[in-house]
């Protein structure tokens, strides 16, 4: 079967091979290339649930960290490869809307989705799925070993006692990293935010590529404290890691995972079907299996190991501001902190 792929794309198939490949592939109405930043372990589930209602549409996932998927989509602007986005940060989608890359579409049943979870324009360019929120993962075994007090706020993390024990994601590649940085700038103000990060930088042992990595590293005891997101912490805790998930007292940054159709897709009908399904009750119940705050909030049930009262701690996030300033923030961040290894300082 693998052999067919090559020949097919080369467009030079012998007639016999065509016949064979047609016979061996089940008849599919459409295949959607869907770009996503949803955690890898959930992708099979998402596709399977969707296929339960729409078995004739095959989903082909392209998954990476938020920053990567965003950058990839922007880079492919002239020659888009994706049909659809399902599960990418709203800040990224705002950016793409600004670039004119999204096809505005009003999914059936969007009126059930709480207004702050969708694009204000009508027809909207994107629709929110769930909120993913920042959190601190603390490995209790490691914390005890190094005599670290349990942090309760962001500012706690700048205390000298935590030096070398904190890992956070690089906002350039990780959506979680970016929502952290943009929330600190909103919470503490532009100046205060950077000052906070200067202090935090002193304690950071390294910046990771992905937003889930800090929590996974904390779960393994490779670091004591990982700045990550609540969903990941709850998952790792469920696996038996000695983790405590902290919601800092100042409030937490968050972003929405959202859905959008890429302008110019050749599979518009299938994309619309998926867009409709992504706001359905079935989809929202599925999001709720991992996320506490979802688009149709009345359906939400508590999630095991998920810290409580998330909704109250979520800051009043200005997505438009974050999207507009994204490039500038990332650039400043890179100039200030990406040279952790600066040999002159050591």
């Amino acid at each position, binding site marked *: 079967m693998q052999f067919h792929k090559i020949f097919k794309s080369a467009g030079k198939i012998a007639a016999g091979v065509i016949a064979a490949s047609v016979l061996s592939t089940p008849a599919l109405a459409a295949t959607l290339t869907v770009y996503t930043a949803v955690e890898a372990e959930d992708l099979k589930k998402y596709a399977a649930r969707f296929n339960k209602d729409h078995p004739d549409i095959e989903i082909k996932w392209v998954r990476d960290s938020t920053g990567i998927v965003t950058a990839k989509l922007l880079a492919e602007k002239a020659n888009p*490869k994706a049909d659809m986005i399902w599960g990418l940060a709203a800040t990224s989608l705002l950016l793409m809307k600004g670039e004119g890359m999204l096809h505005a579409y009003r999914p059936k049943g969007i009126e059930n989705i709480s207004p702050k979870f969708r694009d204000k324009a009508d027809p909207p360019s994107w629709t929110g799925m769930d909120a993913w929120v920042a959190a601190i993962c603390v490995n209790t075994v490691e914390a005890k070993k190094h005599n670290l007090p349990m942090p309760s706020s962001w500012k706690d993390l700048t205390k000298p006692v935590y030096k070398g024990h904190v890992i956070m994601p690089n906002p350039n590649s990780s959506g979680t990293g970016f929502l952290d940085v943009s929330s600190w700038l909103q919470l503490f103000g532009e100046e205060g935010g950077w000052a906070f990060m200067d202090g935090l930088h002193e304690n950071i042992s390294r910046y990771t590529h992905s937003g889930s990595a800090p929590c996974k590293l904390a779960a393994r005891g490779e670091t004591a404290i990982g700045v990550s997101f609540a969903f990941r912490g709850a998952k790792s805790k469920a696996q038996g890691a000695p983790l405590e998930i902290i919601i800092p007292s100042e409030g937490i940054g968050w972003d929405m995972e959202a859905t959008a159709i890429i302008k110019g897709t050749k599979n518009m009908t299938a994309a619309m079907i998926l867009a409709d399904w992504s706001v359905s009750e079935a989809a929202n119940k599925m999001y709720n299996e991992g996320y506490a705050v979802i688009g149709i909030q009345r359906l939400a049930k508590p999630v095991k190991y998920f810290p409580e009262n998330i909704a109250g701690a979520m800051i009043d996030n200005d997505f438009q501001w974050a999207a507009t300033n994204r490039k500038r923030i990332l650039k400043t961040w890179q100039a200030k902190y990406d040279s952790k290894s600066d040999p002159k300082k050591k």
Partner: protein
Amino acid sequence: MRLSRDDIIMRAFMITIGLYLVVTLALPLYTMLSKSFENSDGMFIGLTNYIEYFNTPALVYSIENSLFIALITTAITITIAYTFAYALTRSCMPFKGLFKALTMIPILVPSLLPGIALVYLFGNQGMLKELMFGHSIYGPIGIIIAEVFFTLPHAIIILITALSIADARMYEAALSLRASRTRIFFTVTIPGCRYGLISAAFVVFTLAITDFGAPKVIGGDFNVLATDIYKQVIGQQNFEMGAVVSMVLMIPAVFAFVVDRIVQKRQAASLTAHAVALVPKPNKNFDRTMLVFCMLVSFFLLGMLGVCQYAALVKFYPYDLNIGLTNYQFDLMDGGGWDSYLNSIELASWTAILGTVLVFTGAYMVEKCRGFDNGRSVFQMLAMLPMAVPGLVLGLAFIFFFNAPDNPLNVIYHTMIILVISTIVHFYTVSHLTAVTALKQLDVEFESVAASLKAPFYRTFWRVTVPICLPAILDISIYLFVNAMTTVSAVIFLYGPDTNLASVAVLNMDDAGDIAPAAAMGMMIFYTAAGVRLAHYFLSRMLDKRTQSWKMR
């Protein structure tokens, strides 16, 4: 000279393969060079990108870091490799064959794997963490250990060859002049293999400075040029800056390449037909010391591998040390799951088959074609060029060239085809040299005789050349197969949703913090590559008996 039909066919073949190299190498590199002078909208902006680069301290430090890593790695690797090769060629210690085979281990794994082993050995939960005396393995220390692991076999191969060509008469002369052992070592042995030493040093230096796997896994926040390209392109999709860093990375690579070429030419002339082969004499103490040394090096290599296998099997290190297969559930992780493993095997097979046909045919045409000297030297140059191009740079150049909307070839972007094409080009030079060396050993008479019998060249090619060169052909295909399994650098920019690769999966799983599954996938690559290597070993022994018996008298 009137051109015969054979001449025309041969030239047509050569030009076709030459054009293939132009399209898959020269044009992409040119596109990348011009991108480095453009802004993201494709406007020509002169040196602006370069000025920005040199005004960004974070990026410029990487040059220093890369040079530092490469120099230290070269010093350590060459010292170990030289002693090892010396033991294999100049001592009478036992198990030489075994040691030689063991040193090839690092070739069979992605360069990410030693990094993963180091995390388990010396990371914050490391088994031997105390040996770090409070230093962090994440950073230069880790990168250098991983690079030494990764570069060792390459240096050892070159140095064994260099130390094997020794003229026993020189040693006899030195001994009769009553020179001491040390004196002989410095005045005969070292000068005798100086070209080998230089060549090995440059090969190691280039590998270390262009490698991306080790610093990615174990580098922490110690940035080097290779990880900068990755971060610029993958992390920020700042392709233009990626192109600038690529150009910077090309400088040491091209420099090392040129020096190596010059040295290789001289080396060839250093051994005369009158030389008498040097046969080592037993020396109890020396042999024992060498044996211990080789055992230590082998222990290091095997140990790294063993740690990775252990890591792959432990359920949840360090809190649940039970053994299980949970980490092999690749379908629940980043990186494309088990499909990526199958894709890698597919890529490796295609690369081995098509690459060998292409490389060997090209080498044959360039060696046996009559006249057309200009065309032949252009072809030779094109065939040597890939050696000087780091994989990451090649991959980035491919994006620029093959993903351009107005390039009709852009349909192959993200497909298996582009992965096969890039991998063949990436490893073209060594394959080509292997083929040329084998072909040079064939007497030109074969072609003359065939021509006088009015046999077309392709019959000679198929009935005489290919069977005689079969060992070399097998070597090339196995070299391509193994490298296609382990490489991450060029393909990291080129794989698509359907063409995830095992080596890339190792990287992506590690990136997402799933280091144990990354180790598990890395070991899958090792077992596959090692299995193919073993099969190759037995197959070539069998073939030797059947097709090479004419060499025995």
